[in-house]
């Protein structure tokens, strides 16, 4: 493994600790896959509790909403390389086709415009490639009041708070 690969894995490992701060992300079992500013990827594993239509065994759209919402937050943080309090303002999803039952689903996102008050993101959910998406989506996030924290400082704070 090259130094570059090791550094990339280390970044994923760091951001994973941030993702699991959210109880809902933990509950869904969201796992970070890639944290590059041009494309952040989170995956969700097959889980019987997350099915929308048992006859078809297809995952519920709400799971894709949560996956992409989480991925958008990550994409904005990764682009800033900092954590900053923010909230989803608007999010839209188009469901292009049913997800394949029993397969893991990837959510990919990019923050394509980072402003002072707003961040614009787009992304999609897919199995094999973003070129063959299950769902496409875009969203706008609004920064809220509160401190801006560098990733390493946030991780250090997490360590301190750990019992």
């Amino acid at each position, binding site marked *: 493994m090259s130094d570059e690969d090791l550094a990339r894995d280390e970044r994923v490992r760091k951001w994973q600790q941030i993702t699991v701060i959210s109880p809902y992300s933990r509950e869904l079992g969201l796992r970070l896959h890639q944290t590059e500013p041009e494309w952040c990827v989170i995956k969700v594993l097959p889980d019987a509790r997350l099915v929308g*239509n048992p006859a078809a065994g297809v995952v519920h759209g709400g799971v894709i909403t949560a996956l992409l919402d989480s991925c958008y937050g990550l994409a904005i943080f990764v682009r800033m390389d900092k954590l900053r309090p923010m909230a989803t303002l608007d999010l839209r999803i188009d469901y292009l086709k049913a997800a394949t039952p029993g397969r893991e689903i990837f959510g990919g996102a990019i923050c394509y415009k980072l402003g002072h008050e707003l961040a614009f993101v787009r992304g999609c959910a897919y199995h094999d490639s973003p070129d063959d998406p299950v769902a496409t989506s875009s969203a706008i996030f609004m920064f809220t009041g509160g401190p801006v924290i560098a990733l390493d400082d946030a991780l250090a704070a997490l360590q301190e708070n750990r019992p």
Partner: protein
Amino acid sequence: MNVHAVVTAARASRNWTPIVELVPYACFLGMRLDIRGDQYTACMPFDQKLIGNPAIPALHGGATGGFLECAGMFYLLWHMDSADLPKTINFTFEYLRSGRPEDTYANVFMVKQGQRIAHLRVEAWQSSPDKPIAIGHGNFMLKPAPSAQGNP
């Protein structure tokens, strides 16, 4: 599983739990339906697992979003005769206020009911329906039951 039979039985017994049980993800969210006469309300009781940002704390946008979508789908099941679960074509969420760690309710408005597609607006609220925390609107592909087809 026969969706039409489950809905028919729920209408007769006025026990709406079996409708929620048609959708495992709705059970995961702990959803309940409260239907009195023609007043339809969906409820997502608060649970720690629904938190997205523990610092505020606030509900996860994905939890609120999934709740809005499920509330819309159950409304369609209750409101019309479906052979299968309606399919979401697209959905847009506007997040207006932070979701506090308490029970969330949703009311559904049929904006347009077509032959194949219904357009819904779903409003989620906590303290008062006048102060929605999120509004969703989306198109659903309908799956009318054979007996209902051809009706106006």
